[in-house]
């Protein structure tokens, strides 16, 4: 990873957290759906990132969002879970594909169809985990599932949009 890449990554971290806290946390359609875009940071991490490192990064990412929202631990646990299922996601989504080293996940490099499947799997896992931890019980299971599904579609739309707008440079 070059210095420029590192700078872009740090900038992306800060911008995604701020956008999440100050813009997307305020969009919630009467409390039934809450789009979350910060998972995009974990989604876009290069494939060869050390797995343990990615868990720590996810922890910091979730904690940053939590500090602003006042829900210490909630986004953190969901974000760590997201980093945990990420290796599973790319082994399921493209079992017969071999990645060249240096290829980053993204629409430009691997095509829209691949990207949508890959991020849909991750975003859904993240949202499901998040809303169950938020409810902290299985009593209101239908309500939780509806919230998960609606937020999922909203988040996916925004994540794909953001990825298209801020296309990474083709190498």
């Amino acid at each position, binding site marked *: 990873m070059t210095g420029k890449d590192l700078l872009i990554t740090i900038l992306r971290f800060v911008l995604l957290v701020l956008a999440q806290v100050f813009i997307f946390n305020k969009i919630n359609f009467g*409390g039934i759906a809450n789009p979350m875009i910060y998972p995009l940071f974990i989604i876009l991490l290069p494939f060869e990132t050390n797995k343990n490192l990615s868990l720590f990064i*996810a922890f910091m990412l979730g904690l940053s969002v939590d500090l602003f929202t*006042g*829900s210490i631990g909630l986004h953190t646990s969901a974000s*760590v879970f997201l980093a945990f299922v990420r290796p599973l996601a790319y082994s399921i989504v493209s079992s017969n594909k071999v990645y060249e080293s240096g290829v980053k996940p993204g629409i430009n490099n691997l095509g829209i169809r691949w990207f949508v499947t890959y991020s849909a799997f991750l975003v859904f896992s993240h949202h499901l985990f998040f809303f169950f931890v*938020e409810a902290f019980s299985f009593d209101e299971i239908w309500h939780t599932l509806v919230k998960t599904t609606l937020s999922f579609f909203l988040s996916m739309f925004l994540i794909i949009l953001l990825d298209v707008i801020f296309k990474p440079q083709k190498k």
Partner: protein
Amino acid sequence: MRNLINFLIKYSFIFVFLLLEIIAFILLVSNNSYQRSAYVSASNGVTANMQESVSNIANYIGLEEENQKLAAENAFLRSQLLESNLWAEGSLSTHIDSNKTQFYTYIQAQIISNSFQNRNNYIILDKGSDDGIEVEMGVISTNGIVGIVNSVNKNFCSIISILHAKSAIDAKITSNKYTGTCYWPGENYQIGQLKNIPSHAVFSVGDTLVTSGNSSVFPPEIPIGFIHEFELKPGRSFYEIQLKYSADYNKLNHVYIIHNLLKEQLKEIKEVRDDG
């Protein structure tokens, strides 16, 4: 020993994952308890200052609407003043009021951050212990009750919103004076639940709910909401009532913190009663 180290290295991904999740859940659980709210940490330092500057911008944008609201409220208060004077003069039984013993004072405050989409919601206000705020003071807006102060630091305080799993407010139906308790079931931020209204009570959809005044936190007759739907299941002795909150918790901006001047005396007399 060597095998153990090899084992730990081989499965380090899972162990690191479990470790971080355990930390996250410890944080979550220890910060979600009723009295020790995590919100004090969120109302400190950098994050609170940034929240404040963003909320300043939002305030400026909403200035016109807010002005209209304030004007309407001024008019309302003025009319109430005249009315309450007449009422005090014309009544003998309410000698506390006619002796001009003041029960409550109100402190105006501004919302810095507010949420309504979570199961348990908190609000941060820009007044703290420097302004005389203490825990367990009630908070209301022009349109209805908002919550109860649960932690205070120098310049900020955090409120447990009515939209919280642990909120329970004594309410009275104005048409028949029956009292019950309001809860928030968590599905819709505009809809609450009223329990403990006995099956022989008579009321109808649209009846107003106000605070009962049974607690020392809220004065009586503060609006809560309206009856939205009700049902009496066969064999039950209490109604299941849905209420619609009169305040829109999405649009709160200015609120009033209630200071009960005689709270200490009230507490004393309750302790005497409990001892006896």
